[in-house]
């Protein structure tokens, strides 16, 4: 019913609307991001009094200087990169095959297995029994304590499973089976090449999890040489969150808190930028894999 001209008109309108919407989202988010960047090179007093509200004020690189001079931070950085790469590889090796298998309708017991996995989202033995298991496996104070107790996440398995269910055409599997291909072969030769988007997403989800992880490190590690970045930062900023409500405060504590607070005020924003920059920069590279739709089409044809 629509004429060709009116179609392009609505299309144009929609397109304009989409770009306006995106620009609004961009500005809404950009402001706080710029704020943090500006705050990281501004005088803390100007930041806290609200005088610095967009562009840096009282510019100082003191915060970055302190960060870059701290060797613990760099060691933590290297540790974190190592844990993230190792941990994410394990995560992918566990999650992707399991999610694929669970996506197969001809897998007997898939609902039961799914139920077993999902149940762990709700019921957990808690910190202490888990700690005891890790301890009895001899993993305390080793890197394994950081990568094995979170080798998979139900949430991610579920998401990957949905991807396989909705994005991998059943016909592909069927025809491969008729050709006599084993499940191993189907998975490695057909499924994996189609899975770039979900592998990218899983790598991102798990990778970010490992990158920000400090709790397991705190619980299972005591050797400072093994501390990941987030735990190092926590140690540096630790007294900052101590409140005045803590009743038994002494003179030395008050002064310790004061000097920590001053340090924290200077490096707080810089630390955030330094510690998250690599993972933010990594995102555009992973995004490339989201443009994989073409492949499915070509394989089918």
């Amino acid at each position, binding site marked *: 019913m629509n004429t060709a001209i009116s179609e392009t008109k609505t299309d144009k309108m929609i397109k304009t609307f989409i770009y306006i919407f995106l620009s609004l989202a961009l500005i809404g988010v950009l402001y706080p991001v710029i704020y943090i960047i500006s705050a990281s090179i501004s005088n803390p007093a100007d930041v806290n009094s609200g005088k610095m509200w967009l562009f840096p004020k009282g510019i100082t690189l003191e915060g970055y200087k302190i960060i870059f001079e701290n060797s613990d931070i760099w060691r933590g950085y290297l540790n974190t990169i190592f844990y993230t790469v190792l941990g994410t590889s394990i995560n992918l090796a566990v999650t992707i095959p399991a999610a694929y298998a669970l996506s197969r309708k001809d897998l007997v017991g898939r609902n039961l297995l799914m139920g077993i996995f999902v149940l762990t989202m709700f019921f957990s033995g808690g910190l202490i029994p888990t700690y005891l298991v890790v301890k009895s496996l001899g993993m305390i104070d080793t890197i394994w304590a950081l990568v094995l107790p979170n080798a998979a996440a139900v949430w991610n398995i*579920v998401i990957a499973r949905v991807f396989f269910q*909705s994005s991998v055409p059943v016909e592909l599997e069927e025809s491969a089976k008729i050709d006599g291909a084993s499940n191993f072969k189907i998975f490695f030769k057909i499924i994996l090449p189609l899975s770039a988007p979900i592998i990218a997403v899983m790598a991102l989800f798990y990778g970010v999890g490992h990158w920000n992880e400090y709790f397991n490190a705190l619980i299972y590690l005591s050797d400072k040489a093994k501390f990941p970045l987030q735990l190092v930062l926590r140690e540096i900023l630790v007294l900052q969150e101590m409140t005045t409500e803590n009743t038994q405060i002494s003179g030395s504590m008050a002064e310790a808190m004061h000097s920590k607070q001053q340090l924290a005020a200077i490096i707080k924003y810089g630390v955030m930028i330094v510690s998250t920059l690599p993972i933010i920069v990594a995102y555009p590279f992973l995004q490339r894999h989201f443009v994989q*739709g073409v492949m499915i089409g070509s394989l089918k044809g």
Partner: protein
Amino acid sequence: MSSSTATALSNEEEKMDSANMNPIPKNKKPKRNRKILQNWQLYIFILPAFLYFFIFHYIPMYGVQIAFKDFIPSKGIWGSEWVGLEHFKRFFDSYYFWDLIKNTLGISVYELVVGFPLPIILALAINEAKDGLYKKTVQTVTYAPHFISVVVMAGMIIAFLSPATGIINHGLGLLGIDPIPFMSDPKWFKTVYVFSGVWQSTGWGTIIYLAALSGVDPQHHEAAIVDGATRLQRIWYINIPALVPTMVILLIMNVGNIMALGFEKILLLQNPLNMESSNVIATFVYQAGLLDAQYSFAAAVGLFNSVINAILLITVNQIAKKTSETSLW
């Protein structure tokens, strides 16, 4: 070799079945067994995940009992004294019990209603934008706030919303609106919490949808263009249906998380004036725990939450099963 493994695996299957379901006599289901044999490799795929959940989640699960005990770490979980439902009773009898439930549900549902659709809309919009620098910038910038730590985030919220110096109230002032005490008026707490969350996580939430959109076969779009479909029609009839399975699953999972509201951000934004709407189960447990490491009490409240969450999840999953093709199981 392969067949013997398959037998072992199918035995394993049987064991799990008999442990968790009514035992199924072997000979009655020959077809089923054949299927298991055929797909033995798929069980190998699941094995690592299964072992992981078994070792790190099921072995420690005996710890659930501390909700019914007076747990003292040095006595151990088995050695601590059994007190039955005492901790549950204490929670239910709390002066704030109904406030806690009301606030927890209120914030979670609000968050779900506002926070759930936005990533979908943003993902659809990003998907429509032409590939290039602008699209990449939007994607990366909207994703960045996810990495701001809760402490800094809370500090920024308080600073931006300050009635005297905050940028938001300055803006409102320019529009001739009197400063709003966002942080000290309990009416505003939920909104502040939810929208700051939206701001922080919408971009992050688009990732999964963008991945799903990349699974859409471009031939569909090409065919639709040839047929004269408008952009809006293509979004509606091609892109959105492609997102439905992911949406349904995320919705189920989110509903199953409704009682599990985290405490950190709320605690940082909480003050005595907004407490009547910011006092939630998680902060209550945190404060109770501060007095004295009350593991058992925290475990009891956690168990209560989990049971409700599990019931919700199962219900929503059943509904999803009936109304759409996607469900958790």
